[in-house]
C-alpha cells in the first residue's frame, strides 16, 4: 500500500509540474469573463448559460487532463525509457499501475474541486446581482447544491476516461496511438443509444447483434451526463445515480485490473 501511495504522490507532483493548474486558472478567468459578456447577449438566460458553460468547461478541461496526462502515465515512461529505472526499484508492477492511476485521479479530483469552487463563486456573484423576480423565474437557484451531482458524475466519467487511457497506454508504446484510442472510445461511448438501436436501421441481424453487443461492452459515457437535467432543476432519481456510480466503479476496476494484467506480462527488454 505504501508503494502505491508513493507512486500516486509522485504522479500528483509530476502532474502539477505539468502546468495542469494553469488550465484551472484559465478556466476560472474564462468563466468570470464569459459570465459578464454573455449576460448582454442571452435575453435573460445568462444564469442557465453560465451554469452550462461551467459544467461543460469542467468536463472538457478534465477530459484533456485525463487523456493527455493519462496516456503519458505509462506510454511516456516507455518512450523515455524511464520505465527501466522504475522497474528495478522495489515496486511491484501492479503497485506501479494502481499508484499511477490513483495519482492522476487525485490530480483530477483536486482540479475539479478548484474548478467547482470558482464555479460556485461565479454563480454566487451572479445570484447576488439578480433581482428577486428574476430569481423566482429561474428553475433552480444560482448556487444550486444539486449541481454537485452533475460535478460528481463528471468526476466519475473522468475517472473512467483515465482508466481507459491507462489501459490503452499499457499495451501501446506510442502516446499518440494511446490518445487516439482513448478519444475514439470516449466518442464511441457517447453513441450508446445509437448502438443499442442499430438493428432498427440495418437489415443484417448479425450487425444489429454486434451493435447491441458493443453497446453493452463499450463504456457508456453518455450515462454520466446529467448536466442539462441539473441545470433545469429537474429531479434525478437516486437509484439512477447509484446504478451509474456502481457501473462507473465496476468499469474502472475492470480496466485497472486489465491494465495490471497487460503490464505485468509485458516484456520491456
Amino acid at each position, binding site marked *: 500500500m505504501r508503494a502505491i501511495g508513493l507512486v500516486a504522490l509522485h504522479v500528483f507532483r509530476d502532474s502539477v509540474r505539468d502546468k495542469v493548474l494553469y488550465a484551472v486558472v484559465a478556466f476560472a478567468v474564462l468563466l468570470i469573463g464569459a459570465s459578464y459578456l454573455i449576460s448582454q447577449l*442571452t*435575453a*435573460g438566460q445568462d444564469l442557465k*448559460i453560465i451554469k452550462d458553460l461551467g459544467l461543460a468547461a469542467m468536463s472538457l478541461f478534465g477530459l484533456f487532463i485525463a487523456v493527455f496526462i493519462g496516456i503519458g502515465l505509462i506510454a511516456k515512461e516507455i518512450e523515455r525509457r524511464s520505465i527501466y529505472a522504475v522497474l528495478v526499484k522495489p515496486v511491484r508492477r501492479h503497485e506501479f499501475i494502481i499508484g499511477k492511476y490513483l495519482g492522476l485521479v487525485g490530480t483530477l479530483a483536486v482540479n475539479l474541486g478548484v474548478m467547482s469552487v470558482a464555479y460556485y463563486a461565479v454563480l454566487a456573484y451572479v445570484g447576488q446581482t439578480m433581482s428577486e423576480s428574476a430569481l423566482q423565474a429561474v*428553475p433552480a437557484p444560482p448556487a444550486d447544491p444539486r449541481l454537485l451531482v452533475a460535478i460528481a458524475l463528471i468526476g466519475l466519467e473522468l475517472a473512467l476516461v483515465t482508466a481507459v487511457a491507462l489501459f490503452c497506454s499499457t499495451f501501446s508504446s506510442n502516446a499518440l496511438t494511446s490518445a487516439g484510442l482513448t478519444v475514439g472510445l470516449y466518442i464511441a461511448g457517447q453513441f450508446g443509444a445509437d448502438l443499442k438501436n442499430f438493428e432498427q436501421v440495418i437489415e443484417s441481424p448479425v450487425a444489429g447483434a454486434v451493435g447491441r453487443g458493443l453497446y453493452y461492452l463499450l463504456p457508456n459515457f453518455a450515462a454520466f451526463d446529467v448536466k442539462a437535467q441539473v441545470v433545469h432543476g429537474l429531479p434525478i432519481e437516486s437509484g439512477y445515480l447509484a446504478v451509474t456510480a456502481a457501473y462507473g466503479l465496476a468499469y474502472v476496476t475492470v480496466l485497472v485490473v486489465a491494465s495490471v494484467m497487460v503490464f505485468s506480462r509485458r516484456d520491456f527488454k
Partner: protein
Amino acid sequence: MTSSSGSGGRLPAARGAAAIFLLIGVIVTLQVVREHRFASAEPAAQVLYLSSPAVLTRAALSFDAIVADAYWIRAIQYYGRARLLRNVNARYDLLFPLLDLTTALDPQFTVAYRFGAFFLSERAPGGAGRPDLAIRLLEKAMAARPDRWEYPHDVGFVYYRQGDYVKAAEWFTRAAQVPGATNWLIPLAAVTLATGGDIRSSRLLWNNILSSSEEPWLRRTAEQRLRQLDTVEMIQQLEQVTADYERRHGRPPADWEELVGDGSLRGIPRDAAGHQFVLNPWWGAVTVTEDSPMWPLPADNPR
C-alpha cells in the same frame, strides 16, 4: 548575433515592454486605418452549416447543453439584429431552424420554445409570419414537457393572433386542464370565445402574460404590446375626431393645428411613447411615426 546590452542575449524588460506597447499601438492604428480606408463589405447572408438536429445532437457529444446555448445566442442575435436595424423586409428564414436546433440539443429550453412561438407567429415586419412553424415548435415543447401549461397556452395565443378564436379558446381550455395551471386560463378562454380580437380581450391576454411571466424578454414584449394597444385605442379615437371634422368641413383636417384650432383637440396628440402622431391630410388616417418605439404597430391589430 551578440547582444549589445551585454545581458547575456536577453532583451531588457523595460525595452521589451516598450516594444510590446509600441507594436500594440501599431496594430490598433492599422485596424483603424483599414476600417476607414476600406469600407467593410456587407456581411454575407447568414448560413446554417449544420441544419440537421439529429446530426448536431450527435456531434455535440456530451456538450449538447452548451451547444444549445450557442445556437440560442445565435437565434436571438439573428432576430435582434433585424429588429434593431428596423428592417421592414426581414424574413427571419433562419429563426425556426435555429430554434429547432436549440431545442433539439436541449429539449428543456423553455425560453427558446416560447420565444419562437411569439416571434415566428408574429406577422412581418415584427416576426416571421409563420404560425405553422410556431405551432410545430410548441408541439415539440409539449412532447418534451407535457406538465407545463405555458405551451398549450402559447398554441392558443398563436391561433388568437391568426384570428381563429374558437381554436384559441380550445387551447386555453386545454392549458387550464394541465395540473398546476394558472387560474386565469378559463376566463381567458371564455372572453376569447365571446369577444376574441377586440381590444379588451387583447388587453386581457397581454396583461395575463405580463402578470404570469418572469422571463424579462416576455415581460418587455407584453409591456410594449400593452402600450401599443393604448396607442391603437388613441388612433381609433383620433380617427373618429378626424371623421367628425371631415363631416363638418367637407374635407379632412390638413394638420393637427387645425383640429386644435377647431377645438376638436386640446393639444397635439402624442402616442404612448410621447411621439407626435402622423396625420394623413388626404384621407384623415392616423398612424405612428417611424421614429416612435411604438412603430411598427403589430399587423394583427385588434378591432
